[in-house]
């Protein structure tokens, strides 16, 4: 499917959802219980104490630290396993199994081990991202193109012995789609960690708003998560373009 850059259609797309929202709310009179008014959502940004943006910054901070840490360690772990076949044979089944465990299901472990401390939240996000990325790194390196394998055979060397000059840039070139997908996963983990073990953050706000039926607060938090995801995704793509400069 070709993605075009038709500005008019994009503007229509951006306006469409709010327009439907207005119609449902004001023409069909949908109850606040199911659909808050746009005005009540805007109110949330001025009425909450502490301000919703404080919660936003806490969630954003957790996301950036947990996600960055998970990405870096995930890639390093993948490269390390690529270098050592024996280590891969030993650890691969364990990592594959851990990757399959829904990160949300591990929240009780982190709560019991770390309580409400930030360490637990960071580790939850970190482990949810790192194992996935290490497996992806190994998968990418299992499909080295023939042309490079022929070269390494010609010089009687192994690709595994050239992590900095070959394996790392080769992986970085192909990792962006997984990174973008993992970003959404990381945001989900931020929410889950804040649901159960936090006194501040958008996830915590959603949890308390649920118990007071404050749909406008929930909507405002979801809107901010959407902006967070979109913004960080755009920054990620920009940063990645610089890192893999040779692709441009």
């Amino acid at each position, binding site marked *: 499917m070709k993605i075009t850059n038709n500005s008019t259609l994009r503007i229509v797309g951006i306006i469409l959802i709010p327009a439907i929202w207005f119609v449902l709310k004001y023409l069909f009179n949908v109850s606040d219980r199911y659909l808050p008014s746009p005005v009540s959502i805007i109110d949330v940004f001025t009425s909450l104490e502490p301000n919703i943006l404080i919660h936003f910054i806490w969630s954003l901070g957790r996301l950036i630290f947990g996600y960055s840490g998970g990405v870096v360690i995930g890639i390093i772990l993948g490269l390390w396993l690529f270098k050592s076949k024996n280590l891969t044979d030993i650890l691969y089944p364990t990592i594959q199994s851990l990757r399959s465990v829904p990160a949300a299901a591990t929240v009780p472990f982190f709560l019991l081990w770390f309580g409400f401390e930030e360490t637990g939240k960071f580790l939850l996000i970190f482990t949810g991202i790192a194992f996935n990325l290490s497996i992806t790194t190994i998968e990418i390196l299992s499909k080295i193109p023939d042309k490079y394998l022929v*070269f390494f*055979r010609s010089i009687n060397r192994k690709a595994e012995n050239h992590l900095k000059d070959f394996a790392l840039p080769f992986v970085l070139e192909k990792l962006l789609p997984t990174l973008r997908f993992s970003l959404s996963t990381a945001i989900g983990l931020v929410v889950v960690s804040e649901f159960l073990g936090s006194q501040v953050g958008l996830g915590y706000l959603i949890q308390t708003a649920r118990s007071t039926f404050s749909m406008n607060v929930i909507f405002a938090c979801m809107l901010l998560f959407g902006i967070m995801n979109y913004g960080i995704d755009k920054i990620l793509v920009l940063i990645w373009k610089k890192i893999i400069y040779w692709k441009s």
Partner: protein
Amino acid sequence: MQITGLTFSYEKFLVFDDFNFESSEPIIAFKGPSGCGKTTLLKIISQNLTPEKKSVVQYSKSTYFVIQEDSLFPWLTGEENILKFLDTDKKKIQSQKLFPFVESFLFKKASEMSYGQRRMIELFRALIFKPDLLLLDEPFNFMDKKSRCVFTSEIISLLESRTKVILTSHYNEDISDLKPTVYYFNNSFPVRELSTEDNKL
């Protein structure tokens, strides 16, 4: 170069069946239509493909294979593509006869070079390596006539140091100066032997 009873197939497609080949010429060219098995044979000789057990292939101690596709790492400069992987140093690179010819683009990132420049760096790298057996698959793709002449004379110099060369090319004018002994693939499978017209170009 001696090959006896070579049998090789891609999954169920039999490419070589009891294939025999022998030649003591210093430079050999394989010619034939596209898809006839030339590159497959070079990959077998360079041990990038493994034939069936009964095959006997005389492998060289060091074989360097320059394939058709560009295999420079695009994130490195031409010089880094050589220095970081070969047992050599800047001095040896600069003392190579062809250094003045490639100097103007050797320090560029491979991603910034033209196809012809990348091809030249690949050949330059192979010449620095000085293997016992040099395999060249369509070596002069994207190269202009002057560049082809320059690299041809350097390959001929390499023969003087007992390096053997096997190459493939669709174009006689590309390789005529090398004066290889030519062996022909026909377009039928499985391949059992190559025809020769003792045809030095």
